[in-house]
């Protein structure tokens, strides 16, 4: 394990970056900021069928957003 880590550290400075001391400093900017996930303020249902059912019950049109990969997950 030690030799493996040493060899990786020699490859790239990024692999030497992370430590207990700077864990939070890296964690926070990796997480999406509120402005980056404003689209989550919209109460998306996660399946087309669920949308049709609710639209029928609430007498509203269905807005359908579809992508390769689930839009609420990894696209």
């Amino acid at each position, binding site marked *: 394990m030690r030799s493996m880590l040493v060899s990786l550290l020699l490859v790239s400075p990024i692999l030497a970056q992370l430590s207990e001391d700077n864990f939070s400093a890296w964690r926070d900017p990796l997480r*999406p900021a509120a402005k980056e996930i404003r689209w989550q303020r919209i109460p998306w249902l996660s399946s087309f069928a669920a949308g049709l059912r609710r639209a029928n019950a609430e007498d509203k049109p269905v807005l359908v957003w579809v992508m390769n990969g689930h839009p609420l997950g990894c696209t």
Partner: protein
Amino acid sequence: MGRRSVWSKEKLIELTKKFVPVADEVYRLQRDAGPECRVFRKIFRGTEEPSRGTMQGIYVCTAGGARLAGRNSLNADLVAKMLEGALEKWDQLSTEERSLPVGTSIEVGPRWEDSYPSAGLVLVRTARDLPKKLDPAAAAVMPFNPDQVWFAKKEARGFLPDQLTPGQKGPVSRLIVERLTRFHLVDNVHGQTIPYAPSEVTSSKITSEVTGQDGDLVEVQLSGTTKASSDKWLLGGNYWKPQRDWPHGVATKLLGRAVYDRKRGVFTKFEMVALGERWGRTQLNGRAMYTAAEPIGFEFSLAAKGARIAPTFINMYGVDWVKDPYKQ
């Protein structure tokens, strides 16, 4: 993330309140034989026949099956105009025209989401490009992409040493290390990529150490390295099989902190960061011009309850608790 940015505009957020907003994965809807997939194609394509071309986009319809609008755009003004036009059409429809015919129901076929591990560990993973200067403060503006990570309850226990007393240390289970490295520490920041084969996971080891205890709550620290590197496709014929080989890889150093409630057998806190580098490209991951090694970061934390979105590579997990909807 730019693909989602259209929904960040205040005007659009307000407009969506007049609709039932739905987000769904299009490949299944455009190709599969399930009832809601056929309804989707009937409404938006005019035929129940599967579509070979992508149907990605934004559409509006009635529950009764009338198409009101549709386009594929990231331009918020154009999308707003489309939604307003759809509302005008909606207002002209009778109740009968808007609604499902009496006695009709919308059936849902089996989905990967049906295997959601309610009692297990569900994480959100964020993958993000990192600046070459390796400045954390500059990382926040870099592109990112989320994914879900699922572990059954019995699998999640593998994040912990056998003995849950302070000072105890042990390796995180091979299943967990492989799942993370093959499916989640992958370069899909800019678009979908392909999974790694087990044999492409090398130099990967994560250690867990109990660092504290407060009643039934056990604090653990995670540390390790991961590496996956692929020269050729080794996973046979499946949904992800690329048209050619794509040399690519990811290596990371990883640290994490978690709190495990041993009485309930659940994690009450989980945060893990992996920093490393990616190299090469795959067909759709947007790296055509950037195949040299560059920094990449990953962050994992507990998902919100009820966020039942299946992990991208759920069909490759290969465990008995994940039920393949295509074999039911």
